[in-house]
């Protein structure tokens, strides 16, 4: 080995990130800083957007090997957990452990509000198709309207992995914007009188029902839409840990350190997919517009169905709880409470809105299940991919071995 001073110095200079910093990288670093800023100073879903932004920052430092496509890199390693759909279900395990389905059980018809809010998913799907996306992509974009991060990531990584980054960012950003997006729509679509409706106190629910509920949901929904089992099953297992009363240890771990660890890995992995190549595209802009559409229409869908329920029950249901059907737990329910109390300061809608709010989580999961039933049976998204492509993200050692075997095989021809 020879080390001339100038050669070594040149090597260090040519291996700096600066030497390869393209405009795209710089823009993405700015995008990363924007996300970090929004997370910290605007409190936009900081638990997700802060590590997503930081992952984006790391991924866009040239030659850092931190993009999701850099085989052997650290964030590529975490990304395998997204690609193989392991991390979103583990997040849902924690979400289930954190969720109280009591208000939903006390008023099960609010499940319909969670269903109605899914209208946002499908209007957006149609919009996406009109904007030129194919059906798989449009489905993944539409699910942003479900207002559920893990569900969006799960569906995007399954149906349109190349759009994972903008979909995840749009989903979490708009979730953070729920307190800004929803109130004008809520005021527009409801009358003052409707907003003043006070709802009856919720019935108490037997603990046994709370325990049986997650098992029943799993059997009913997963039997009908088996594709959503990893998500919905883990959500319900987490809830069973919570309600059973005999697994306090597992419940505590699922709702604290396990979900936190998985959140760190998942968010970094999503951030690592925000490379200039995949993000600085016209599609991203379209997805951002469509995401806003999705949230708005989901809100409207919930409200309109809330008005129908109001009519049908002779005014016992305040339509404002309908907007909580988008999920975005618990922000959307708080927005219902806030808008309701603006109309009448003695109006407490929070607990009533929690029913459709958690119903929205189940609703989106069911919507995801429909997509998987329709489109999820494509084993390889790129049916004609060569070996090199398939093996692209595989562990380097294995890859090298396979390549060598392929070489030998090729020579044997």
């Amino acid at each position: 080995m020879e080390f001339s001073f100038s050669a070594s110095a040149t090597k260090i200079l040519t291996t700096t990130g600066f030497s390869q910093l393209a405009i795209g990288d710089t823009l993405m670093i700015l995008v990363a800083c924007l996300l970090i800023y929004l997370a910290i100073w605007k409190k936009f879903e900081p638990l997700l957007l802060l590590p997503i932004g930081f992952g984006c920052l790391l991924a866009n430092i040239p030659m850092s090997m931190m993009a999701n496509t850099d085989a052997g890199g650290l964030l590529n390693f975490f990304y395998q957990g997204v690609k193989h759909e392991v991390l979103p279900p583990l997040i849902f395990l924690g979400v289930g452990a954190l969720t109280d389905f009591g208000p939903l059980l006390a008023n099960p018809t609010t499940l319909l509000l969670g269903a109605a809010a899914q209208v946002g998913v499908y209007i957006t799907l149609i919009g996406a198709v009109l904007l030129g996306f194919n059906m798989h992509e449009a489905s993944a974009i539409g699910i942003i309207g479900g207002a559920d991060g893990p569900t969006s990531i799960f569906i995007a990584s399954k149906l349109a992995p190349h759009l994972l980054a903008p979909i995840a960012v749009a989903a979490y950003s708009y979730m953070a914007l729920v307190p800004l997006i929803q109130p004008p729509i809520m005021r527009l679509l409801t009358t003052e009188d409707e907003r003043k409706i006070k709802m009856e106190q919720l019935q108490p629910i037997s603990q046994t029902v709370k325990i049986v509920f997650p098992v029943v949901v799993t059997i009913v929904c997963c039997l009908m839409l088996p594709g959503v089992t990893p998500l919905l099953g883990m959500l319900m297992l987490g809830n069973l840990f919570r309600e059973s009363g005999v697994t306090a240890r597992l419940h505590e771990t699922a709702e604290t350190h396990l979900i936190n660890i998985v959140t760190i890995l998942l968010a970094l992995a999503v951030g690592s997919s925000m490379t200039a190549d995949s993000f600085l595209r016209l599609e991203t802009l379209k997805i951002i517009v469509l995401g806003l559409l999705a949230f708005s229409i989901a809100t409207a869908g919930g409200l309109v169905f809330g008005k129908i329920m109001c009519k049908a029950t002779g005014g016992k249901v305040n339509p404002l709880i309908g907007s909580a059907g988008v999920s975005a737990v618990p922000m959307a329910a708080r927005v219902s409470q806030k808008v309701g109390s603006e109309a009448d300061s003695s109006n407490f809608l929070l607990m009533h809105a929690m029913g459709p709010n958690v119903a929205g989580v189940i609703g989106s999961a069911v919507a995801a299940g429909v997509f998987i039933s329709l489109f999820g049976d494509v084993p390889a998204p790129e049916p004609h991919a060569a070996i090199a492509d398939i093996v692209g993200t595989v562990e380097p050692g294995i890859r090298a071995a396979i390549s060598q075997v392929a070489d030998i095989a090729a020579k044997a021809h």
Partner: protein
Amino acid sequence: MEASFLAAVKISILAIVVIFTVLVILIFTIKLLVKLIPYVAPPPAPPRHQTASSTSSDQDEHVAAITATLAIHLGKSPNEFRIVNISQS
């Protein structure tokens, strides 16, 4: 384009029908469940005893003592709150 638009509309209607079907089934299941297993108000909390058992860990005793203190002081049932963890470093 028109074909895919139509396809998207069809898919959407179909999906919404499926979603409502699934959730309506779920609603009726829950209603049945709530009817079969009605809520029973729990009996008032029994008076607390100080047991002599030394088998449980000190941690448990601490928690029990704290819980009892809080319960007495605040006039609440000890079942209404719980101290999950007291860790030392």
